C-alpha cells in the first residue's frame, strides 16, 4: 500500500523532503500558501556553504555542509555557480583566529587552503588591499528559487503534486492521529480537505503555528537577517570575513550584483519584517570594509527574512540576544510522543544541506511507518528547474 504524505511548505526544506519521500515510494502532496521559496528560502544569500563558516562554533554543521556541498555539485550541475570563496582577515583580531580556523577546517573535513595576500589580491583586485590573510574555500552560489524548483521538478516527475497559493487552516484527525490537512485555496477562497497518512510540517519560522493546530509546542525562534544588494559585481568569488559569525560577515556575488549580509535579530511575526534603516547602513559599511568603494554602486534591493532557528532553551536566548549562539543544525521530530501521531516536523538547517535534512526526515518517517525503502537522494540527479513548469 502506498502511503500518502502531505508536506506543508515549499521552501528548500519541504521541496527536498518531497524529493526524498517520492524516491522512497511515498505519494506526496506539497501545500504552500504563497509562491515556491517565497519567504525564508527565497531571501537567503544563495550561498552553497563550504562549511568553513561553522568550523569554529558548530563543527557538525560544518562537516554536513562540506559533504553536501560536494554532493550537490554532482546532483544539480545546472543550478550552481562554482566560483569558490575566500575567508579574509581584515584586522589583527581576525588574524588571531586563522590558525585555529585552519586546524578546525582540517578536523571537520572542510577543504581550505591559505594563499598569500598578494595572490588573493590578484584573484580579487577590488578587495581591501590591507587584508592580512586569505584562505581559499569551496563556496558556490545559487539562486534559492531555482534550487528549490529543481527539487520540486524532480519530485513532480516521481508523482508529487504541488499546490501553491494553498494555505493550511487546520489539521484533520483520524481518531487520535493526524490524518491530513484542511486547506484554503487563496486564488478562489475554496476550502477543502486533503487526507493523508502523515503530515510533514516544513513551515520554517511558521512551524510553531502548524504545531499549535495539534497542540504541540514547537521550539522555533524566527530570527531575521538583513541583506543589501548593490548593482556591481565587485568580486568573482564569495568573500567571507575570517572571524566568528558576525554581522556583515559576507559578500555573495549574484550575476552582476553583490549582496552583503547579514544581521541577526529575533522577530515576533515573520509575515512582515520592517528593515531598520540603520541595518542597511551597517551592511553598506561592512561592504565598504571588504571592498573600498562598495557603496558607490547603485542600490539593488534590501531584503530580510526570518530563519527558523531551534530554541534549545530559553536561557540561551536571554544570554545571546542576537541569537548567534543558536545551533545552525536541524532537528526532525516525530510528534507521536506529543499526542499527535502522524505529524512530523523538520526545523532549522540551511539550504545547502536541504538534501541531508530531508534524508534524516525520511529515515524518521520510515521508522514510524515501518517502510524500509532506503534514501536515494545521494544518487538521483535533479532535473533542470524549468522542468517544474512542465
Amino acid at each position, binding site marked *: 500500500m502506498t502511503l500518502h504524505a502531505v508536506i506543508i511548505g515549499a521552501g528548500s526544506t519541504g521541496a527536498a523532503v518531497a524529493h526524498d519521500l517520492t524516491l522512497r515510494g511515498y505519494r506526496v502532496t506539497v501545500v504552500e500558501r*504563497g*509562491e*515556491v*521559496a*517565497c519567504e525564508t*528560502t*527565497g*531571501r537567503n544569500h*544563495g550561498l552553497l556553504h563550504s562549511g568553513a563558516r561553522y568550523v569554529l562554533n558548530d563543527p557538525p554543521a560544518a562537516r554536513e555542509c562540506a559533504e553536501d556541498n560536494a554532493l550537490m555539485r554532482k546532483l544539480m550541475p*545546472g*543550478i*550552481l*555557480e*562554482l*566560483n*569558490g570563496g575566500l575567508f579574509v582577515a581584515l584586522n589583527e583580531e581576525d588574524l588571531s583566529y586563522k590558525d585555529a580556523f585552519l586546524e578546525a577546517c582540517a578536523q571537520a573535513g572542510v577543504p581550505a587552503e591559505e594563499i598569500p595576500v598578494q595572490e588573493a589580491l590578484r584573484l580579487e583586485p577590488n578587495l581591501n588591499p590591507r587584508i592580512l590573510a586569505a584562505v581559499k574555500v569551496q563556496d558556490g*552560489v545559487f*539562486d*534559492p*528559487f531555482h534550487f528549490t524548483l529543481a527539487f520540486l521538478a524532480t519530485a513532480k516527475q516521481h508523482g508529487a503534486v504541488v499546490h501553491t*497559493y494553498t494555505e493550511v487552516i487546520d489539521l484533520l484527525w483520524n481518531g487520535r492521529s493526524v490524518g491530513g490537512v484542511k486547506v484554503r485555496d*487563496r*486564488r*478562489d*477562497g475554496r476550502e477543502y480537505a486533503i487526507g493523508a497518512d502523515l503530515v510533514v510540517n516544513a513551515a520554517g519560522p511558521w512551524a510553531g503555528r502548524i504545531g499549535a493546530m495539534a497542540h504541540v509546542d514547537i521550539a522555533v525562534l524566527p530570527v531575521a537577517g538583513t*541583506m*543589501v*544588494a548593490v548593482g556591481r559585481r565587485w568580486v*568573482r568569488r564569495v568573500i567571507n570575513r575570517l572571524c566568528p559569525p558576525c554581522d556583515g560577515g559576507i559578500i555573495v556575488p*549574484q*550575476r*552582476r*550584483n553583490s*549582496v552583503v549580509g547579514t544581521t541577526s535579530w529575533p522577530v515576533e*511575526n515573520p*509575515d*512582515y519584517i*520592517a*528593515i531598520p*534603516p540603520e541595518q*542597511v547602513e551597517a551592511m553598506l559599511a561592512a561592504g565598504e570594509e571588504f571592498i573600498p568603494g562598495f557603496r558607490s554602486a547603485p542600490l*539593488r*534591493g*534590501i*531584503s*530580510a527574512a526570518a530563519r527558523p532557528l531551534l530554541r534549545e532553551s530559553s536561557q540561551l536566548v536571554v544570554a545571546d540576544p542576537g541569537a548567534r549562539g543558536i545551533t545552525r543544525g536541524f532537528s526532525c521530530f516525530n510528534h507521536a510522543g506529543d499526542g499527535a501521531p502522524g505529524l512530523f516536523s523538520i526545523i532549522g538547517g540551511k539550504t545547502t544541506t536541504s538534501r541531508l535534512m530531508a534524508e534524516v526526515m525520511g529515515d524518521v518517517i520510515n521508522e514510524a511507518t515501518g517502510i524500509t525503502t532506503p534514501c536515494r537522494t545521494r544518487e538521483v540527479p535533479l532535473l*533542470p528547474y*524549468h*522542468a*517544474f*513548469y*512542465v
Partner: protein
Amino acid sequence: MRTLNLRIVRGGPGRPATYQTYQVSVDEHLNILDAVQKVWATQDPTLLFRHACHHASCGLCGVRVNGRERLMCLTPIAEFPEGATVTLEPLRNFPWVGDLVVDVKPLMDRMAAIQAPYVRKDELTAGSEEGTRFEDCIECGLCMSACPVVGSDSAYLGPSPLAMIKRLLEEPRGRDIQSLCALAGDAHGAWRCHSVMECVEVCPSNVDPSQAIGWLRRYLILRGRRQLAGAERR
C-alpha cells in the same frame, strides 16, 4: 514613514477585475514590494502576489506600476510623494492566476526548449571545474509583458528567449546549433520583432534583447549565405 495609496487589481479567472485601494505607511528607504507585503500581512491576507529574493535576482515580483512593467523590489517608496496613489496591475501576455499573479509557464517552457544556460567555464580559471554565471536574464517576464508583438502573436518566441538563444550561439558548449537556428529563424522568431524597443526600456537586469535580435538576424543571414555557397558542411 511615507503613506501611499496602493490601488491594486483584484480578481482572477471567472471573477471580475476590480481595483481595491489600500492605505499603507512604510519607511522611505524601502520598496513597493515591502508595502505590498505589509498590506498582505496586516490588512488583507487574501491578496496574491509573487516574490522571493527582494533584490532583483529571482525575477518573481514583476508587475505594472502605474502602467509600466517593473520589479516591485526595485521600485523605491521614495519615488512617490506622500499620499500618492500607485496603481499595481499584473503583467500582460501571461495567463492570469489572480490579483498580481500571472502564470509564467509560457516563458519557462520557451526557456526549457532553448535549454537556457546557467554557467560557463570561467575564462580566468580555464581548465578548472569552476564556472561563473554569466547570463543576466532573470526570467522575470517584464519584456514579454511590454512587447506589443508578444501581445499580438502568442506564438512569438519573445525578447528574453531570443536573447538567450543569442547567448547560446555565442557560446554553444555542445548544444545543437541547428535547432537553435531553427527556433530563431522561424516565422515567430527573430524576424517577428518590430523593433519597438519596449523590452530594452523595461529590462531590470542589463539584458538588451533588441541588440540580441539584431545580432541573431545577422547571424542567420550569414549562415544562410554560407549554406547557399556550400561553404559549410551540413
